[in-house]
């Protein structure tokens, strides 16, 4: 985290970005980590102030932009995304779970979460069938899994399951106002073949 030196006055504040992991498989974050050495470049351009891959417990104030992976599926997701929205300039739905609900929302055909839990842990179980009951330990499921934009305002959408690294980089470069001299496109070709749909 940057502490501003008042003496160095007009120097621009370093951009503060974050990544958040709601109900998703972490694949979008894996794709983010696949940016490999460019992550060093990123650390020169901005402070990553909160992320599942950084040891920060509380989502901080005054974040400029956040990549949100995953859908809103339980009460913890709901609390976090509301906090994220209140404390962040640009919220980017990062990957298909955040945008559509995707695989996490396949459970929505069940009328209630109880029906889902019974199906998964009792009807389909072949060992000690029981619904996990310790609510304080496991965050309570919401009635339906929701895409992020149905819960809070979303400013941009980055598609893919997961979004390919070069697209994450292009987005971050656009956000940080440092177009990468066509490097992102080049990187995409080299490492990912033709950009996937």
């Amino acid at each position, binding site marked *: 985290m940057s502490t501003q030196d008042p003496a160095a006055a007009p120097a621009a504040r370093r951009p503060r970005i974050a990544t958040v992991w709601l109900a998703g498989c972490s694949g979008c974050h894996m794709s983010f980590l696949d940016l490999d050495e460019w992550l060093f470049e990123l650390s020169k351009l901005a402070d990553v102030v909160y992320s599942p891959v950084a040891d920060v417990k509380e989502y901080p104030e005054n974040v400029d932009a956040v990549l949100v992976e995953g859908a809103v599926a339980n009460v913890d997701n709901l609390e976090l995304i509301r906090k994220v929205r209140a404390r962040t300039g640009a919220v980017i739905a990062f990957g298909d779970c955040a945008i559509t609900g995707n695989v996490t*929302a396949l459970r929505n055909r069940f009328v209630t979460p109880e029906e889902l839990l019974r199906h998964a842990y009792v009807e389909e179980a072949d060992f000690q069938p029981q619904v996990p009951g310790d609510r304080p330990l496991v965050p309570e499921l919401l009635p339906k899994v929701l895409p992020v934009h149905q819960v809070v305002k979303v400013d941009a959408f980055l598609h893919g399951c997961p979004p390919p690294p070069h697209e994450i980089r292009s987005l971050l470069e656009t956000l940080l106002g440092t177009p990468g001299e066509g490097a992102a496109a080049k990187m995409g070709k080299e490492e990912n073949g033709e950009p996937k*749909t």
Partner: protein
Amino acid sequence: MKVTTLKINGQLVSASPGATVLEAARENGVEIPTLCELEGISNVGACRLCLVEIAGSPRLQPACVTEAAEEMEVQTDTERLKRYRRMTLELLFAERNHVCPVCVANGHCELQNRARENGMDHVRFPYQHPDLPVDITHDRFGVDHNRCILCTRCVRVCDEVEGAHTWDLSGRGTQSIVITDLNQPWGEADTCTTCGKCVEACPTGAIFRKGSTVCEMEHRRDRIRFITDARKKQEWNP
């Protein structure tokens, strides 16, 4: 043979006699997005993606089933049409479980392509998440109703090209579903000749070859046009 003269997007163009607005546009290099339309079979105007504005008509008209007329003035790409097209696509995505990353047709899907081409980056309507069946009783093919957009290409190609009419529609509104024979499992539908034309015609992952997994189902949609050209025009080279 007299050609029809009309204006498309302010440009004076001519069309073959009897051509639809869609054909007239294509003959003159104007793209209109389509989904239920497939070369080789009849048009029904089911998907509403090809809606265009026609001067003097308060209603939007589907270009695929509207005949081009002399002095007609057509707009194909106004802000209003773009708004409606996007909305139509969003409604299609919201209606059933179009979960691209786990779909056999991911990357080869016309619904997915139209969404991308028309800037549909998210769906503003609540997803319906209906509980729909998958029928894999047929030896070689399967139908996943979660992916079906009710374009009726399968119904038309089976009836018009194969002449079997195994496929049809049942139910109304959101309860509509494509059925085989008298709403029997596909594997028990006696009229099915297993020709696979419905499989090739399907725009999404709804009808697929068994054994294909995520991203593997590539429909050869141009084969339908090839068959009808071969029959009608004796053209055997695709």
